[in-house]
């Protein structure tokens, strides 16, 4: 990858579903000199078109989502504590004690009743959302309201590390996909292609739905981050996919049955080009392919994913080698599609 620092910038910025502006701004400044044209639609999607050396036989849209899971302020208590709800699906077990940042400026922590004062049930129980709160150090509602308003977005605050083998960060789902698309856009493309950086994936695949309508493609490739469960205490058949074992393709998930022709071509391309490819061992989850493949009269669609541990949390993990495999496979497949060879 040429500009891996961009991934850090994308992951370290905050863009909860419905408020992806920070991410959009970074991406636009990154791609504007390389695309033929781009537009921002009513839902905040970036729809970019780049001319290649040749005119495409089939219209292809490559898509990744800009938004990340997070929280939204629902109430401020008389004690100056911030009540919140989840935006996107987040396991409550990864929340207590976490550092968060509200509207990119106010730092807080998710409070925890001291374990010394808990009874034996409380010591093991994760509270429900309605009893969780964020402490920003304010003592009263009036004081808190100087810094926080209802509806403010809340993002996880954590760190980014690239240790040469893996990358640890929040929001790798799906800034990693966005990053790979910027790399494609900066490369010399064989064929004309559309690229959509979409909003609101985590709250129901909404940005991609309208972007697909606008682009009206014949084919779509979704670049995603998908659950890798290759951790201890999970049997091999339940591990879904493994970090470092290459690009991930599934036959089916909870929203989509993927295009068999595209899957078969992906297999051949990976074999012929030394690209590591693995197949999802579970019918689980869903991604923008779910809305894109149902667009208008139907779109032949495939998701090519990065195996990602601990997604939808403050700290997830991907392998750097998988970034290369996903990139290379997506590029080769896109050329076969646009060249009319599929």
């Amino acid at each position, binding site marked *: 990858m040429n500009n891996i620092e961009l991934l850090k910038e994308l992951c370290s910025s905050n863009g909860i579903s419905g408020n992806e502006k920070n991410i959009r701004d970074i991406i636009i400044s990154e791609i504007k000199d390389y695309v033929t044209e781009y537009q921002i639609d009513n839902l905040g999607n970036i729809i970019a078109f780049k001319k290649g050396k040749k005119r495409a036989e089939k219209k292809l849209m490559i898509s990744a989502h800009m938004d990340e899971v997070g929280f939204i302020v629902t109430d401020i208590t008389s004690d100056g*504590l911030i009540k919140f709800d989840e935006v996107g*699906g987040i*396991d*409550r*077990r*990864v929340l*207590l*004690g*976490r*550092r968060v940042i509200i509207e990119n400026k*106010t*730092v*807080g*922590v*998710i*409070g*925890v*009743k*001291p*374990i*010394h*004062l808990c009874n034996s049930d409380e*010591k*093991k*129980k*994760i509270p429900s959302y309605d*009893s969780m*709160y964020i*402490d*920003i*150090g304010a003592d009263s509602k009036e*004081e808190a309201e100087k*810094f926080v308003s209802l509806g403010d977005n809340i993002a996880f605050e*954590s*760190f980014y590390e690239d*240790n040469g*083998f*893996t*990358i*640890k960060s929040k929001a790798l789902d799906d800034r990693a996909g966005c990053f790979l698309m910027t790399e494609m856009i900066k490369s010399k493309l064989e064929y004309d292609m559309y690229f959509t950086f979409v909003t609101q994936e985590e709250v129901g695949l909404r940005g991609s739905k309208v972007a697909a309508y606008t682009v009206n493609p014949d084919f779509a490739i979704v670049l995603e981050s998908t*659950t*890798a*469960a*290759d*951790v*201890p*205490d*999970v049997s091999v058949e339940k591990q*879904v996919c493994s970090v470092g074992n290459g690009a991930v393709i599934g036959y089916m998930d909870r929203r989509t049955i993927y295009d068999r022709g595209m899957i078969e071509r992906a297999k051949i391309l990976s074999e012929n080009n030394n690209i590591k490819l693995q197949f999802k061992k*579970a019918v*689980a*989850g869903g991604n923008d392919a779910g809305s894109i493949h149902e667009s208008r009269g139907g779109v032949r669609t495939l998701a090519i994913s990065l195996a990602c*541990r*601990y*997604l*939808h*949390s*403050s*700290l997830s*993990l991907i392998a750097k080698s998988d970034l290369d495999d996903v990139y290379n496979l997506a590029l080769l497949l896109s050329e076969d599609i646009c060249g009319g060879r599929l």
Partner: protein
Amino acid sequence: MNSNNLSEIKDILFDLCSLSGVSGDEREVSKYCADYLSVYAEGNVEIDEFNNVVAVFGNENADKTILLDAHIDRIGFIVRNIDDNGFISVDKVGGVDLRTALDAPVIVHGKENLNGIICCMPPHLSDGKEDTAAEIDKIHIDLGLPVKRVKELVNLGDDVSFKAKPVELLNNRVTASALDNRAGVCALLRTAAIIGSKNNQNKKPLPFKVVILLSCQEETFAFGAKTRSFDIAPDEAICVDVSFSNQPSVSGQYSNIKLGKGPMLCVSPNLDRDMYNRIMSVAEKLEYEYQTEIAAGTTGTNADYIAVSRSGVKTAVISVPQKNMHTQAEIVDLNDINKTGKLIAAYLCHISECGENDYE
């Protein structure tokens, strides 16, 4: 240290919380504190073979010895296994709150400090267990490194601590991991800067011996305080720790304790009531804010051991109020650290009958 300079307290506290020092391996933080204390202490400052810091102030030949104790260790984990894929299994060192463990960023203190993540199950495998915290035998750490590299860098017995870079919240509050008890340590460093005369010839050394003990291994078995209080054989001791402030779902006496309202003075059957009264009267006289905490049995601090050292030691406990104890999200108020350090210094000056202005 300027008495009004909270920013200096903040800097020291942030340094302290950024240093390692899980019980049993307090070397890094002990070195930092010993260096600091050496600037002020009239007597010897040493780090013993167990990583306790012992600093002698005042007249070391005096008959009377007062011990000021704060534990310097922090809770964490200890590495007990590395599996074939490089995942690390651990056990608890001290009372780690496992409700905060899953997906937590940690630092594995191997041959170098390594960033890790405590593994968590993806949602599709958790099947309705979102209500339940992890158990320690299901806690595994992912360094994101090949197993060969993990085994080169990490040994069984290495420590693991939560990673939570200290940051400032509103109202001079700060959040970090290890504020239990780096906040107490910081308060005693503040006391040291006030009472110590080594760097200031205009100051008079206290007429009795004061030993500051920054003790190891409190979070496990109070080893440092038990053994060093035997050696130091004090006449009086003040133990500085953190205690509970009000926060949601905390009821009873702690619902009345507030951050920023000064140190908590503890009344307990196993503490000396006269000392409590004297410290309280110094606070009253100087109009220093304080709050009262009642511990009906023992206190859960090093004081429980110091008070019964040798033939018994008159002991008091002064605590910095804290929220979210034993998590990565501990919160204290810098004012409380400052007030704790000042009150202890004022008490020492009071019983030495030096002038009131000497301890400002």
